């Protein structure tokens, strides 16, 4: 029995691990190797510099800002689409007419590529004729010309808004799939016992949505790095590095300044941070599993 299990484990794990190992893990570690060199990306000769690149991180003010922005970005990329997606899913699941139309509308943004989403939000934030300033002018009766993407105080958040717009539909769909999995008779029992809808949602629906929440949060975390594309297109980390994230900083150092070694050091740090976040998340995941096992 136990021997059988081991055999199946090996047979089932080898294909995914082999593919993942060759195409992700190995390239990852071989790029980590550059972090202890002074390679510039072009030159054939480079030398070993020990931990110099890592020490440099402490003298790099841009790194600190990028690290803070990364935390903000990750938190927002998880909280906003998750919260909004849950609200939308609950509203749509409440037997509202046209539910499938609503569902498609909220999902639509995911179908668009980062290139298009980035561009369209640049047009929304445009200071003179952009949709946002036009709307603000209409509501306040004033004449709003705010440059949302060009001001260090708002650039990062403006991109986060665009990102949330695109990702919310995904969270909504997963929550909807989770909601359909809640047995109807359970809800029925609540009705009979006379629970209000608020109570029903809080005490019955939300706990049962935990597996869906796990997926949504995981996706949010994983996707927050895919957000590189949209940030790259909308601000490129600007103005003057104010919306840099670690991924963007890594990119700038490696591909724009040709500091491949230092860029690799940044990605090692990014990897360690990611590992810590996943570890924390993983413990949470285990708690959820205990409900089922």
């Amino acid at each position, binding site marked *: 029995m136990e021997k059988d299990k081991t055999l199946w484990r090996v047979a089932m794990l080898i294909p995914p691990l082999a593919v993942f190992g060759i195409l992700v893990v190995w390239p990852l570690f*071989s790029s980590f190797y550059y972090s202890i060199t002074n390679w510039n990306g072009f030159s054939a000769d480079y030398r070993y510099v020990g931990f110099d690149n890592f020490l440099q991180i402490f003298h790099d003010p841009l790194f600190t800002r990028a690290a803070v922005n990364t935390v903000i970005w990750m938190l927002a990329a998880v909280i906003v689409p998750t919260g909004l997606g849950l609200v939308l899913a609950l509203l749509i699941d409440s037997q509202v007419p046209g539910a499938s139309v609503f569902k498609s509308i909220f999902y639509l943004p995911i*179908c668009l*590529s980062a290139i298009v989403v980035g561009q369209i939000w640049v047009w929304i934030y445009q200071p003179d004729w*952009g949709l946002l300033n036009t709307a603000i002018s209409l509501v306040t009766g004033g004449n709003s010309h705010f440059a949302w993407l060009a001001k260090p105080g708002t650039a990062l958040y403006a991109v986060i808004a665009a990102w949330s717009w695109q990702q919310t539909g995904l969270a909504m769909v997963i929550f909807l799939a989770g909601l359909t999995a809640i047995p109807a008779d359970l809800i029925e029992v609540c009705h009979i016992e006379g629970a209000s809808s608020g109570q029903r949602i809080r005490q019955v629906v939300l706990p049962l949505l935990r597996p869906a929440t*796990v997926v949504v949060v*995981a996706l949010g975390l994983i996707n927050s790095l895919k957000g590189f594309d949209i940030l790259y297109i909308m601000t490129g980390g600007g103005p003057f590095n104010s919306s840099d994230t670690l991924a963007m900083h*890594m990119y700038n150092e490696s591909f724009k300044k040709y500091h491949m070694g230092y860029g*690799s050091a940044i*990605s090692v740090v990014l990897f360690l941070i990611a590992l810590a976040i996943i570890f924390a998340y993983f413990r949470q995941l285990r708690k959820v599993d205990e409900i089922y096992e």
Partner: protein
Amino acid sequence: MNDRFASAAMPSFNPWQAAIFVCLTVLALLFLAPTIGVLLSSLKTTEDIALGKLWSFPTSLYLDNFRTVLADPAIHTYFLNTLLIAVPATAGSIVLGILSGYVFAKLPFRGSDVLFLAIVAGMFFPPQVILIPLFRLFNGLGLLDTLWPMIFVHIAMGIPICTLMMRNFFATVPAALREAAIIEGASEWQVLTKVALPLSLPALAVLSTLQFTWIWNDFLWPLIFTQSDDKRTIMLGLVFLQGQYSVAWGIQGALSLIASLPTLIVFLFFQRYFIKGMTMGAVKG
């Protein structure tokens, strides 16, 4: 869609319902605005957009952008290439994710948690980190300028998310079900395909939709791994509308709408299966 939240004695008009409907409509309009922007841009000349007339409604229906896009034979090639990458890569990553997800959920072993964590952590990278080693690898294999590198890379990059998702859904399949099947003489493979998978249809539907969409919309890998025009994907076509000093916005808008259709169709097709996941609820309750 279903009446699970409706009470048995519900009157024909429900003020709550009306409020929700209004609320959703307002949100839907807010959500649609940017997409309408894409649509408007596709109906305008580059000159109009340059002069800031993007958000105004077009006075006449200007369809040349769509005509240009649809008549371009290169675009047809791009579409076919993208399909030839997205379909096998989606299928491949899901199959591999099913295998590893099943082991992590139902056949855990000492250290399996750490392994699982390592796989998921592998996703937390800007893909730029592994560009150069992968380029060297495919260069060595002589696969540059074919569609293979994109297929392989997308399968590999999809493994973490597919593993995570499948593990999560398989975990909700009661252990008792598996044990009963094993006692009746079923192999692990049969438990996986006959018991666990049918209960995980919503996960498969979600994964197919997501993976297809991401792969379809990716442009980094084909940018690096392809060189000839006849190997390029639709997103590269979109990127290449950006000239050195100017961008054909109108055509880009039209192309991006057309390029988004397959992902939308995939979503509309699979969303039916999300509902089929009800069976899963039946078991769990």
